[in-house]
């Protein structure tokens, strides 16, 4: 019998190779995979945070409440699809330096307390900061959310003594640019120490339009206009807008802060039997930015008896909130009569109700 020769070295080499593979290479691959998973999860978490941050959508307003000791109030409405936590509210009095910085956050004097959770399309919340606006002082207002978005109300900076912010840009600053190169995009940035808008304008010159005039809304003060073509060519001009006569007509108080919609939405089917009792309901919606106490009155050209009394009171009607008020009326005489509701001098539509035998 011929004995089969064994290649020991081959077996040893194979054992070493497998030992290396299983004890070193494969654990290393697993380790790298694990590290990659950790990194990827961090990237995904960051993307999620950035995405949610970009989805926040608040509408914010600031005003000086002329009915409440000239206190600065801030309103917020979540018109986005995700909940938002309001972390901090800033009120900065430009005239008082460091002493004029009021930051409202945990355990501050702001009502309601902060942080405040605002659910999507929930009712408008009004923050009472308790700060009394001083006449002619400018107040910057900022709202910071937990995800890091900063919202600045379009009324900011508020001017003390004005309620809303009617005189935001009293003047127009017209800038004329000539001899632009066709095809070149020019950036114009206006920087000033008083409110102005817009901050930046971009214009691309064409072969037919190489000279233009553009307008910035400004207030009296010093400005610097920066112009660049994006390829390294820069120019700046200092401009002084003088304090001359400007006419400002303020419509903010009547249309923004206080506004009601009054409609009669329910009344009985005509005709009624005499001496029967019926109900008229009206819907009153606060379309302004301020919380209101409303007195609603039912008016009529009849002598019918209004059992529940002519006046109905609605307290603390929040911005964008609706209230239903109703009146019970007894038809005491035969005939056709008109009914309508008046709330804070706003009249509803009129309805005609007829009573027969």
């Amino acid at each position, binding site marked *: 019998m011929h004995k089969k020769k064994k290649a020991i070295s081959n077996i040893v080499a194979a054992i070493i190779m497998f030992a290396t593979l299983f004890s070193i290479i494969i654990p*290393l691959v697993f380790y790298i995979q694990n590290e990659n998973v*950790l990194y990827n999860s*961090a990237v995904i978490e960051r993307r999620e945070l950035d995405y949610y941050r970009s989805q926040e959508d608040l509408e914010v307003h600031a005003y000086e409440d002329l009915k409440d000791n000239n206190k600065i109030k801030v309103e917020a409405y979540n018109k986005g699809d995700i909940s938002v936590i309001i972390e901090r509210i800033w009120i*900065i009095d430009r005239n008082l330096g*460091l002493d004029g910085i009021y930051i409202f956050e945990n355990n501050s004097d702001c009502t309601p307390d902060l942080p405040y959770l605002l659910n999507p399309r929930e009712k408008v919340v009004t923050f009472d900061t308790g700060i009394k606006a001083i006449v002619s002082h400018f107040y910057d207002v900022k709202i910071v959310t937990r995800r890091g978005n900063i919202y600045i109300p379009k009324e900011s900076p508020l001017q003390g003594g004005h309620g809303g912010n009617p005189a935001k840009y009293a003047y127009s600053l017209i800038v004329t640019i000539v001899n632009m190169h066709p095809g070149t995009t020019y950036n114009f940035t206006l*920087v000033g*120490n008083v409110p102005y808008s817009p901050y930046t304008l971009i214009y691309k010159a064409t072969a037919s339009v190489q000279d233009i005039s553009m307008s910035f809304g400004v207030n009296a003060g010093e400005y610097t206009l*920066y112009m660049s073509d994006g390829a390294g060519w820069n120019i700046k001009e200092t401009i002084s807008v003088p304090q001359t006569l400007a006419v400002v007509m303020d419509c903010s108080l009547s249309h923004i802060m206080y506004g009601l919609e009054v409609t009669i939405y329910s009344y009985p089917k005509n005709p009624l039997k005499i001496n029967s009792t019926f109900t008229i309901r009206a819907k009153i919606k606060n379309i302004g930015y301020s919380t209101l106490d409303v007195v609603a009155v039912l008016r009529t050209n009849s002598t019918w008896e209004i059992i529940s009394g002519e006046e109905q009171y609605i307290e603390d009607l929040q911005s964008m909130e609706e209230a239903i008020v109703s009146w019970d009326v007894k038809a005491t005489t035969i005939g056709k009569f008109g009914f309508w509701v008046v709330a804070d001098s706003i009249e509803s539509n009129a309805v005609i109700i007829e009573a027969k035998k």
Partner: protein
Amino acid sequence: MNIFYTYFKKIIEIFKINKRNKSRIGISPVVSNVILASTTLLIGFIMIGTTMNWSLTTSMEYGVATEKAIASQKSNLIIEHVQIINNKAYIYLYNIGRIPLRIVCVNIYELGEAPPSPKYELKTFTDGKTLLDINDFKCLIEDIDPSLIGKSLVIRVYAIAFTIFDPYEPAKNIEWGIKIDYLYNA
């Protein structure tokens, strides 16, 4: 013992045979196998050692790089407000990231000018601490060159995650840090 004796005898016989006919007979298969296996083992151990060393180094480097990359992903910061009073800038910072941060540089320069090269050093907040924890909101005071007062400025803040910050070398790992700008209108 018997096995050793048998092998010893066989080796003596080999030498005797070799003495008789040197040209015809080489070393036995057993010896050649032993030599070959030993050499294989030796080379194998060297290979295992080298591979293990490479594997450890690679995994450590990879782990450190991943930790830095993760820290960078978790770092996020906003400048909420800047107030400039008496040649000092009061910079209000809010950590919206998922990791505590340290501020290593604040650069303040005029809008439209080239930014100065950053000098890295650990910054202290007004509460005397150097750490800006997650969801923390703190103020930092920075001196300003008087020639910049009254101008529109860019405030640039460099921050780095506390896990990869080296107190003896603040500039280390700065490429994994974050840089945020704030435009201050005079």
